[in-house]
């Protein structure tokens, strides 16, 4: 949309073809870019191309020649609503009703959607509550949220704007900014305590991306000493309800996405199903005590020190799946080489340690061929260590190479059409255009680098590995927000 706006402002008439269900998003983006009257037509999702264009090829060309209406000739200034600091005055009951008000979103939603919340009751953000929340940071309430250090990222917007001191623009599309107080208001609403606020402020640097058309789920992992200080659950049920810090911080991500980012289903958040991990937010902490010897925690992997705290915000574009081992089967594999997993790995009758990740490889979905974020219990990590991986990096290298496949098979996946720009881009390991590669040339299926994948240790005793289908998240320092 910025491109279309640039052309229109330069005197070049344009017309936009977009999918019909995304009309609200087009209008919102157009307004934010200063061209609210943009001319656009709807494309459908069903008809074959030649039939599809019959419906709009003439109107499309007419959009370039039909004289402008008076409204289209207008210039002016759009003033946003609801920018006052005090949003509501009343009793707590009245305030609860006010914050839970909804707006009806027409197709493709056709249901009421909460304006200020995730759909559930909130803690009312009175001045008193917010003042108390602000005791959790040394930063001033009116300070804008800025990057506290240069940010390196595998996902999201470009690194060029994620420089220390730059103001964070919240997402998905209307680029709002926020103060420390605004973040504190959302933290109060979610049920946070003041000691959670530095973590929440660090998360705010992510811009709380939700994705526009993708089914992103947001996975927020805390690493470093603050996890124990604020009582986060790193063990059994860490993704389940129950722990106040995990739950409230995770929920704050979603409230910030709604209120600071302006994310609205059917308007700017178009994933058809959404994701259950976003329902109440997903935040947990790394189990540093479960790391095998010499394996680094997320903070050290991200360039911070062991005694520094970070929050890693990852977007799993394809959601989550689980490599569970049915009762006793992992233990049978490792203790004596019994069972189906042992047969699958070709180690029948041979005691472990065995590389159970090789078993997992057979079940990865074909959708977005990028790195993977693994959340594995300490015992599974320990088995990888005993097998021979003396660092996480060695696991990343092994996993990445194990995912290589010949180009003839890679062509049968959907995402590479986009990743390779229709097979016209240069393949990195060969320096050749993708379309020029021979059928048997081997290419990675899980990202350009071994380090796009990420291992997090956490959980209880059952031998489980959650698989978040998205690459390594971006790390944001927490201590700068204390």
């Amino acid at each position, binding site marked *: 949309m910025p491109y279309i706006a640039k052309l229109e402002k330069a005197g070049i008439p344009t017309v936009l073809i977009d999918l019909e269900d995304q009309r609200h998003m087009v209008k919102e983006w157009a307004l934010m870019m*200063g061209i609210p009257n943009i001319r656009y037509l709807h494309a459908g999702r069903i008809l074959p191309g030649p039939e599809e264009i019959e419906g709009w090829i003439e109107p499309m060309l007419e959009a370039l020649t039909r004289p402008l209406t008076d409204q289209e000739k207008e210039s002016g*200034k759009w003033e946003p609503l609801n920018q006052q600091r005090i949003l509501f005055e009343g009793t707590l009951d009245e305030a609860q009703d006010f914050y839970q008000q909804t707006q009806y979103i027409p197709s493709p939603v056709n249901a009421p959607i909460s304006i200020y919340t995730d759909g559930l009751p909130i803690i009312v953000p009175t001045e008193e509550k917010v003042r108390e929340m602000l005791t959790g940071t040394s930063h001033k309430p009116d300070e804008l949220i800025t990057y506290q250090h240069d940010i390196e990222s595998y996902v999201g917007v470009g690194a060029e704007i994620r420089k220390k001191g730059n103001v964070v623009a919240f997402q998905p599309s209307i680029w709002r900014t926020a103060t420390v107080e605004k973040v504190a208001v959302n933290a109060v609403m979610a049920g946070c305590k003041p000691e959670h606020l530095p973590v929440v402020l660090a998360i705010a640097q992510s811009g709380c991306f939700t994705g526009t058309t993708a089914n992103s789920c947001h996975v927020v992992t805390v690493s470093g000493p603050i996890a124990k200080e604020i009582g986060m659950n790193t063990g059994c049920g860490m993704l389940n309800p129950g722990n106040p810090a995990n739950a409230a911080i995770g929920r704050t991500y979603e409230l910030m996405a709604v209120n*600071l980012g302006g994310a609205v289903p059917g308007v700017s958040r178009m994933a058809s199903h959404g994701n259950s991990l976003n329902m109440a937010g997903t935040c947990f902490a790394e189990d540093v005590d479960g790391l095998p010897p010499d394996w680094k925690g997320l903070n050290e992997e991200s360039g911070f020190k062991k005694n520094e705290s970070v929050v890693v915000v990852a977007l799993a574009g394809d959601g989550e799946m689980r490599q569970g081992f049915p009762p006793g089967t992992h233990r049978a594999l490792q203790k004596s080489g019994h069972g189906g997993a042992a047969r699958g790995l070709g180690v029948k009758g041979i005691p472990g340690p065995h590389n159970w990740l090789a078993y997992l490889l057979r079940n990865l979905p074909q959708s977005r061929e990028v790195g993977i974020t693994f959340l594995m219990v300490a015992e599974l990590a320990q088995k990888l260590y005993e097998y021979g991986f003396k660092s996480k990096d060695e696991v990343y290298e092994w996993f990445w190479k194990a995912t290589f496949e010949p180009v003839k098979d890679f062509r049968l996946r959907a995402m590479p059409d986009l990743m390779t*720009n229709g097979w016209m881009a240069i393949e990195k390991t060969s320096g050749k255009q993708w379309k020029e590669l021979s059928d048997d040339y081997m290419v990675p299926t899980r990202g350009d680098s071994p380090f796009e994948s990420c291992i997090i240790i956490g959980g209880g005793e059952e031998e489980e590995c959650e698989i978040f289908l998205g690459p390594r998240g971006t790390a944001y320092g927490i201590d700068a927000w204390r």
Partner: protein
Amino acid sequence: MAEKEVYKCLNPVGIQKPVDTFPLATRLNTLDGKEIHLSITGEPDINIALEKRLKIDYPNVNWKQKKSYTPTPIPLSDEEMKTADGLIQSVCW
């Protein structure tokens, strides 16, 4: 009674700056002889048919193409913007 106490409640909504809005570019009197760019971002099922049809049905237009398989369009260069008379963005996601 405590429940009747009136509280001032703060605004969780982010800071949105006013937006200067602009008129659309003046439209063309005719397409004949004009340089119209077709900016393609994926959706080959639609865009292959569209490109073919435009060239056949509107031969007097000087059609130009910029093709990407990704959602991000390939922008016109500064030089191209000097001669472009119009642009069709198809299909934007």
